[in-house]
């Protein structure tokens, strides 16, 4: 039983990482109508910045803060300079653009930092707690708490602030929003900047475990995409729930179903996702999409 709880908590922790990146993907999709395949790459580059700052002597918290600022600027700049012309156009062209970004940013990271995996300190330390027979790492708990906090803050931003209202309006109908005086261009940049920050949070949280390298978040990205789609693509909460679900199922299946084992457990979330999507194409929490002819 204790083992089961451990697996669940670890699954929630991994799921939280997927969830942070999935949130970024959903945010970008709502604001600009495209799926950003480079979301993981942007997060990794920003994590490298944290790494560089830390090794230049900055305390970890400051290094992370610096990376957050970098991530925001990076996201805003990429939206304005590279992605803007492709928004709300053919979604497949946009996919290829973000794939190009994915390759380019990975290349930039490799150019500056090489392909050798680097160690990154854990913000939450390395302790393990013994909670009545269940062994849980502080890092895992911390990760889950961070994600929950992020979700709460995002809710607060979108439902309770003027900025959040403006971002929702722009995501809904940018042309109409501009007629009410909303600075659409600036708001789109902010949206991407915010998404990029969510990405670097995922990166910094998982770096101690995965070691920082240009490809660090490649797999996480795929899981995050799966979670975002499973959650319905327009529901931030749905993406997070789906991400937790994926993390937990992956862990449980890997541990309890022998034929799957550790190497094939990555297949489990996909199989589950495919089944769910066939039964319910709009995802768990999405709205049924009515395409006007």
């Amino acid at each position, binding site marked *: 039983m204790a083992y089961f709880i451990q697996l669940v908590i670890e699954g929630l922790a991994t799921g939280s990482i997927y969830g942070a990146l999935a949130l970024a993907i959903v945010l970008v999709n709502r604001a600009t109508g495209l799926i950003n395949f480079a979301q993981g790459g942007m997060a990794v580059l920003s994590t490298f910045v944290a790494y560089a700052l830390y090794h230049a002597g900055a305390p970890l918290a400051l290094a992370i803060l610096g990376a957050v600022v970098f991530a925001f600027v990076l996201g805003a700049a990429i939206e304005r300079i590279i992605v803007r012309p492709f928004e709300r156009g053919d979604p497949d062209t946009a996919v290829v653009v973000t794939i190009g970004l994915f390759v380019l940013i990975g290349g930039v990271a490799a150019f500056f930092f090489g392909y050798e995996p680097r160690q990154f300190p854990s913000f939450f330390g390395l302790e393990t707690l013994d909670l009545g027979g269940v062994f849980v790492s502080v890092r895992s708990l911390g990760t889950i708490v961070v994600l929950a906090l992020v979700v709460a803050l995002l809710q607060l931003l979108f439902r309770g602030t*003027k900025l959040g*209202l*403006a971002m*929702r*309006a722009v*995501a*809904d*109908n940018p*042309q*109409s*929003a*501009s*007629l*009410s*005086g*909303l*600075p*659409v261009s600036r708001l789109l940049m902010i949206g991407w900047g915010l998404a990029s920050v969510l990405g670097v949070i995922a990166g910094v949280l998982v770096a101690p475990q995965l070691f920082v390298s240009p490809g660090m978040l490649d797999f996480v990205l795929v899981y995050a995409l799966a979670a975002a789609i499973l959650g319905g693509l327009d529901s931030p909460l749905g993406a997070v729930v789906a991400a937790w679900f994926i993390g937990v199922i992956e862990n449980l299946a890997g541990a309890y179903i022998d034929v799957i084992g550790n190497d094939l457990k990555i297949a489990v979330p996909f199989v589950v996702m495919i089944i769910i999507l066939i039964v319910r194409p709009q995802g768990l929490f999405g709205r049924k999409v009515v395409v006007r002819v």
Partner: protein
Amino acid sequence: MTLLELEGVTASYGHAEVLHGISFRVDENEAFGILGANGAGKTTTLRAISGMVATGGRITFDGTDITGFRPDKVAALGIAHVPEGRGTLGDLSVRDNLRVGAYRRSDRAGVAEDIELCLDLFPNLRARIGSNASALSGGEQQMLAVSRAIMAKPRLILLDEASLGLAPSTAQTVYRAIKRLRSEQGVAMVVVEQNAMLAFSVVDQAIVLETGATSLTGSRDELLGMDEVRRAYLGG
């Protein structure tokens, strides 16, 4: 006092020029109509003012040359555009739509007052204040769109085909509220309408467009007196 002036305004979509030199003037407190058949360029004229289309010529608002300004800059100067198709923010609630309309304002008390004013003008909206805007009927969405414009406390409202797609009685309701708005608040307006009778219930001056150029112009009474207008819009 001239509030809005268009001088030789042209507009193009890509390489196709659809407006060929439109000129007119709207004074403060005046309601000005743009009439004409489908495709005459009425909507394009409003889009030119709002900077939504490639524009040539000169557009002046309260002394400032606003030709080619971005839509949000135009809105910031005090022009509220109720677009064709209403521009409803479907994912947002009715209340949030109104709040978006007031985006540029910082006087929270004034905003609350104006929400009340809108709900008073359009009682249908009061019952739906919490619903998602996409759940509203066409008429209600039109009322919401006009309310959103009012929320900006604008000096000039651009009203594009407010009766489009509405049942005649609903269109009447909308226009009655617009008349009330005119008489109570004195906001200047440019009203684009295919339905001339509805337009004439609100406007004092008007032009009639035909394939991107002005074909007739005059005061309400003058236009109503013209044979062409009577034949085209009022069945002889």
